[in-house]
């Protein structure tokens, strides 16, 4: 059993213009991934060198020995993967990273996903069927509900109002939480701006600094919040030291110490 393996494409389904669902069958025995973990993925065969490095993708699901990836076209590799068809072979390293920490029995799990971030929280939703999901998308066509567990409690927002409530998923989440009473464990994954806002809203510091601010959450019971952070990666296994994130404990590596971090730990870059 090795963390480095090849996998064959079983199917590739275009979900919208830019997003596709890739189902892979590992060609050798692999480790079972935890929710929040990821794989480094690259083309097979080292003869072509552009793109060169593997790229990180969350494990969206793992069942019956098949690996499910939800991928959005962003650049070189994702554009190539979009055109992959059954039979193409990929190289993977993983599962990697720490994933989401376990939810305590006395805690209520709330999940927030923005856009393609849904890929990284689905396994969690399946592991905790009572979890509530806040799912924000840009528009109707970016919403992928078919992949969600059937019985899940889901609140949807969209930027343009074409589906669910129009507006920010975090605003809706805040409203929901303002009426919550029990301890909450919050897991979130989404674009950089969402992660950032979330850290501001839910970190101790955030709360201290912004008691009066609109986005702070100073009225609530205990909220233990975690975010999945994206950073450029070369190795995925803590050897290149490329995927640094600044934390209250100094620089940490997204690939090894993350990708999931407690919002209290993360120091976001000033912009």
């Amino acid at each position, binding site marked *: 059993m*090795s963390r*480095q393996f090849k996998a064959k494409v079983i199917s590739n389904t275009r979900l919208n213009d830019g997003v596709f669902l890739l189902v892979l069958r590992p060609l050798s025995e692999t480790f079972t991934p935890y929710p929040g973990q990821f794989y480094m993925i690259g083309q097979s065969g080292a003869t072509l*060198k552009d*793109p060169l*490095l*593997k790229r990180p993708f969350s494990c969206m699901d793992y069942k019956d020995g098949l690996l499910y990836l939800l991928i959005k076209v962003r650049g070189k590799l994702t554009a190539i993967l979009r055109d992959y068809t059954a039979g193409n072979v990929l190289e993977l*390293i993983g599962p990697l990273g720490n994933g989401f920490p376990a939810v305590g029995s006395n805690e209520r799990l709330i999940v927030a996903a923005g856009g393609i971030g849904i890929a990284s929280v689905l396994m969690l939703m399946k592991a905790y069927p009572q979890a509530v999901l806040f799912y924000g998308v840009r528009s109707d066509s970016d919403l992928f509900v078919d992949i969600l567990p059937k019985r899940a409690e889901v609140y949807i927002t969209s930027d343009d109002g074409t589906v669910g409530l129009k507006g920010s998923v975090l605003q809706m989440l805040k409203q929901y939480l303002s009426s919550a009473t029990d301890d909450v464990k919050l897991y979130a994954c989404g674009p950089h701006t969402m992660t950032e806002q979330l850290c501001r809203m839910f970190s101790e510091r955030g709360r201290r600094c912004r008691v009066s601010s609109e986005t702070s959450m100073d009225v609530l019971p205990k909220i233990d919040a975690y975010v999945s952070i994206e950073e450029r990666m070369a190795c995925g*296994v803590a050897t290149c*030291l490329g995927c*640094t994130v600044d934390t209250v404990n100094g620089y940490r590596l997204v690939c090894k110490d993350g990708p999931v971090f407690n919002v209290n730990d993360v120091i976001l870059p000033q912009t």
Partner: protein
Amino acid sequence: MNLEVSIAGLRLKNPVMTASGTFGYGLEYAELLDLSDLGAIIVKGLSVKPAKGNPPPRIWETPCGMLNSIGLQNIGITAFVQDKLPLLRQYDTLIIVNFFGDTIDDFVQGAGMLSDASGIHALELNVSCPNKQAGWSAFGTNPAILAEVVGQVRKVTTLPLIVKLSPNVTDIVEMARVAAGAGADALSLINTLTGMAIDIETKQPRLSNVVGGLSGPAIKPVAVRMLWQVHRALPSIPLIGMGGIMTAEDAIEFLLAGASAVAIGTANFVDPQTALKVIHGIEQYLVRKHVDDVNGLVGGVIC
């Protein structure tokens, strides 16, 4: 068939190492491959005190290459010797420690500390990182300063001393001659070329450090050229060739150009098995070419 090579008094079971900064402290890859199969491991650059490195973002992929501005983040020599070395020593491979300092005194102190530790087989003096503060690059680009730092380090260590040269120079042969003259037992080349990339959407550099080191297949032609120039001018100093090696074919190019051994860098990220595949591929090439000693390839280019 013989794959064993000698460099600076070291005997490597095969001529394939992993390059500094691309293989961590070795242990990170122990799960994926048997470290004892490697000719040597060159660990991430160490300094006397732990170093934080540069702020993120630190890496950016370029056509057939990558830029990095890690900035020599490391746990420090003391922590390495205490926490990593005892574990690394358990593998049947040579441990070469890449190290650097901010001042000549730093270099000397680091060399001294490393020489006192047991289980280190050689030192690789890094004077060629493009990610340090302004002025630092003089160690790798100013012949007089290079001579000084190599000479001072030479005095405090009896370990084999490898000097890693910077490619960002007008005359690589001169730098090689200076390093050899000041006491280097072997030379590593090349380190990364200084490069830069800009995000045209934000107008910001892709790396927070603005410039970084370019590595990967893109730089291989420059690396092979420099290696060949140095070998031709100084045939008696052993060379460790690196820069863009992805396959056994690439490695053999370096051997033919005059390298006694090679190191795999960026390719480890792409495929952690690269070093093993390269060893195997060299073996197959020797069989195919009816050469029974890998040393028979060294400097074999016909020109």
